[in-house]
Each structure stands twice: as structure tokens, then as C-alpha cells.
């Protein structure tokens, strides 16, 4: 599948991912991260997915591209918001010089970037906390299962070594202990 090369920057042979068309990069990011009901994919999957489209890359290049593209999307959002704010101000009849526009724009853009980055970090921390809780719950469940198994083993041994029970009675007791009745 041929995709247009981005007009934003002149691509080099050794920067194939950044040089892909904007839509192609967006598709790649979506494929990698997932979104909505769509699950994300591993770097290995992404390398294969790109290879099918004639783009040769490596997991390491994908990793570098991912952290770059994430920031690019964030800056793009902040830049668009800043432009809208500046435009509104100009439409409102504010008499401001180019220098003031630039100063306001830069200030707004930087504040938005810092805030958005903080929000994302907060969201990541929350996701991490939830995952940590899930891991702790699973660990607890596994520990209980191990304990249950050890108890069953001990009881089974006890039954097997009881000389007063017949073979059938032993089988019956073991079945009861294992809960296979």
C-alpha cells in the first residue's frame, strides 16, 4: 500500500517512520496503542504490520518513534488550542502587536503543554495503580489456591496412611477432600 510522504519534513532513508505520511503515522499509532474496543499491538506485531505495507523497521526504531509521536500529538493539540485562543482575542478587537501575540501564544502554548503532560502522567499513574491492585489480588488468589492444595495433599496423605480404612473408603474420602464428588 503506497502512502503519501509527509509534506511537513524531508524524509531521509534512515528515518522511515517519521517520513511516513501523516495518515500512515496516525494509523500506525492507532494500531500500536489501540483505542475504543480496538486493542493495541506489540512492537513485534507492528514490525510485521509495517512489513506488509513495504516499510522495513525494527522494534528499537518503533520505540523511539512512539515516544516522539506521542509528544508530537500532544504539542499539536496544544498548538491548535493556542491558535484558537489567539484568534478569538484578535476577533474580539484586541489591539495587540505581533510581539504581544507571539508572547501570549508562546506562554499559552507552554502552559497547555505542561498541563496536558501532567494530566497524561496522572492518568498513567492511575492506570498503574489499578494494575498494581489487580496484580496484588491475583497474587492473593494464587497464595490461597496453593494453601488449599497443600491442605488437600496433607489430608490425602493422612487418609492413605490410615490402616482402619478399606481401599474403597479411602477413595471415597479422597474424592470428598478434593471435592470431585
Amino acid at each position, binding site marked *: 500500500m503506497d502512502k503519501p510522504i509527509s509534506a511537513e519534513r524531508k524524509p531521509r532513508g534512515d528515518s522511515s517512520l517519521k517520513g511516513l505520511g501523516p495518515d500512515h503515522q496516525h494509523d500506525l499509532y492507532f494500531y500500536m496503542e489501540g483505542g475504543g474496543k480496538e486493542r493495541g499491538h506489540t512492537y513485534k506485531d507492528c514490525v510485521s504490520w509495517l512489513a506488509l505495507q513495504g516499510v522495513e523497521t525494527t522494534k528499537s526504531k518503533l520505540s523511539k518513534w512512539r515516544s516522539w509521536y506521542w509528544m*508530537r500529538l500532544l504539542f499539536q493539540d496544544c498548538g491548535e488550542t493556542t491558535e484558537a485562543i489567539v484568534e478569538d482575542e484578535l476577533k474580539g478587537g484586541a489591539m495587540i502587536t505581533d510581539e504581544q501575540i507571539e508572547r501570549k501564544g508562546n506562554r499559552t502554548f507552554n502552559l497547555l503543554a505542561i498541563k496536558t503532560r501532567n494530566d497524561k502522567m496522572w492518568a498513567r499513574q492511575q492506570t498503574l495503580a489499578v494494575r498494581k491492585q489487580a496484580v496484588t489480588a491475583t497474587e492473593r488468589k494464587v497464595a490461597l489456591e496453593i494453601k488449599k492444595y497443600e491442605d488437600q495433599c496433607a489430608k490425602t496423605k493422612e487418609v492413605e496412611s490410615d490402616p482402619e480404612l478399606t481401599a474403597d473408603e479411602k477413595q471415597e474420602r479422597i474424592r470428598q477432600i478434593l471435592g470431585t464428588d
Partner: protein
Amino acid sequence: MIPTEKTELFDNALLKILDANNTPWGLQAQALCMFCRELGFAPSAGEAVGRLEYLTAKGMAHEVAKVLGKANRCWKITDAGRRYMDEQGF
């Protein structure tokens, strides 16, 4: 504080962040410092400014709106900076 042996990596991190910014606006040291954390560095604004001045002298970054006060200094990447990043495989 950024150890001397990691200065080059820190420079690369700064360039990577500047490279990701494709808007008409420049990035201030405070914002750059925040994004540096994503890349494993926790510099002070002063350290970032020092390296940005070095990168500016090397022609890889440029300071926008120099007429503004020192508190509002902003930087953008230059074509030479982008070329360097591509050559380094970033």
C-alpha cells in the same frame, strides 16, 4: 544534576522534544524539563537553558522572540538539528 557523561544523551533528549514540536510556538525551559522526564532526565531549568544555549551555538536549535524577557525564552529546532536527529536514528 545531569552527569557529564550523560550530557550528550540529554542534548539528544532536548532535540527530540524540540523536534516533536511542529507548531509555530517555541518551547520554554520549564516545559522542556517536564518532557525530559519522559526520556529519563530530571534537569533544572538552568541546566536545560545551559544546554539549549550550547545547541543554539551549534546551530541545532534557535531561540525565538529574543526581544522578550529572559523568563519567556523559547526554543525551536533548526533544520540542522532535525538532520542531526535523523542521522543519529532518533
